[in-house]
């Protein structure tokens, strides 16, 4: 009977993301930007698979209110008092980044998933990291609704081996972007990141 129970537990663990380590934000005003949801939450997870054998997942959830939606539509149309975006068509952007403690980034973004309308994704690598991808970005070309729960999840290949500096910070930040040559470039970011959450330096830890 014990063996059967163990089988069930192992099978369950293999097939399910283990959730832990959540954080959130809650604002009482729009100082961060009228397009920034006043509330949201963040969760990390681990699952087996991916290029390194272990996948680290980060998920942000949020809901827009009517003021957010009206503001985002203004940006989309290039109207309203938004001098940072020069009155040009601009689109809501959710940025999820890993900021390593040292030069050596040990998380590598490779998959993004979202229920945001008509999302355009990008995964980027910026100096000093020239191999692993530290940033996943979703630009929302569709029209968001108020009161609906949206999310964005990023899958990272977990390459941490416990070395000094393998840990770092996971950040989520809202902004607005405009079409560049081959991708979208941010014209304004929220005053602060909405999430700043530490990840550990060992494989498969939060």
């Amino acid at each position, binding site marked *: 009977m014990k063996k*059967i129970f163990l*089988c*069930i537990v192992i*099978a*369950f663990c*293999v*097939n*399910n*993301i283990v959730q832990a380590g959540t954080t959130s934000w809650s604002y009482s005003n729009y100082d961060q930007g009228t397009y920034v949801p006043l509330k949201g939450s963040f969760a990390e997870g681990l*699952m087996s*698979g*991916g*290029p390194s054998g272990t*996948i680290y997942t980060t998920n942000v959830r949020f809901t827009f209110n009517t003021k957010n939606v009206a503001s985002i539509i203004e940006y989309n149309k290039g109207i309203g008092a938004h001098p940072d975006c020069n009155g040009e068509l601009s689109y809501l952007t959710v940025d999820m980044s890993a900021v390593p403690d040292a030069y050596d980034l040990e998380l590598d*973004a*490779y*998959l*993004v*998933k*979202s*229920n*945001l*309308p*008509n*999302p355009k*994704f*990008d*995964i980027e690598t910026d100096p000093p990291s020239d191999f692993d*991808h530290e940033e996943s970005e979703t630009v929302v*070309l*569709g*029209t968001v609704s108020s009161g609906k729960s949206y999310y964005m999840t990023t*899958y990272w290949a977990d390459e941490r081996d416990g070395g000094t500096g393998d840990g770092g910070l996971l950040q989520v930040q809202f902004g607005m972007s405009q*079409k560049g*040559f*081959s*991708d979208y470039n941010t014209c304004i970011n929220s005053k602060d990141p909405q999430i700043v959450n530490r990840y550990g330096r060992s494989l498969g830890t939060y």
Partner: protein
Amino acid sequence: MKIIIVLLVLSVSFPVFALDNGTVRGIFGSDKSVDYTQVKKDKGGLYEHQKKMKQLHKKISKQDGQDYLSTITFENPLLKGEAIDIVERSEAKVKFTYVLAKSTVDNELVTIGIYSNNEDINLYQETLNESLKNAESDKDIQILGITAIVGHVPAKRIDPLQTDSHVFLVDVTADRKISNAKGYRHHFGWDLYHQ
């Protein structure tokens, strides 16, 4: 009691067996619950844009040795094998693969973006297989198919690619060589699967 436990173990473990067999749970395109004919393809002048692109393809097809950053949108969500065939034939160097899924909880559409930076078709296939397995381990979604691919396509392959029956649009306006030229503003409505 033992029968119940065995059934429970089998049901929980099914995805592992499926992956071991090299298959993907929820075969692409088998789901008919989303009516794609309801998507207004002409919204935002998408057909006009397609017409303009076809003229452009003829012009650039003679530029031997050049390649263009292209967004290849499919007529319907494709099976993995169909998408890989198109990538192989077009010699595309794929940067992003867009996959359409739906929530099994509330049927809402979910978009998955898979990054790849592989010039070799075998490596791309490997990346796609692995990433789709990862995505499908989320039991709250059901994958419907591959809807678009973003990558660099050799100029000589673009016109033939546009005539492929699976392809709705090969949009090259995101390429720097085109976006610098007057009159080819990138069209934001190329995606057939979202309003």
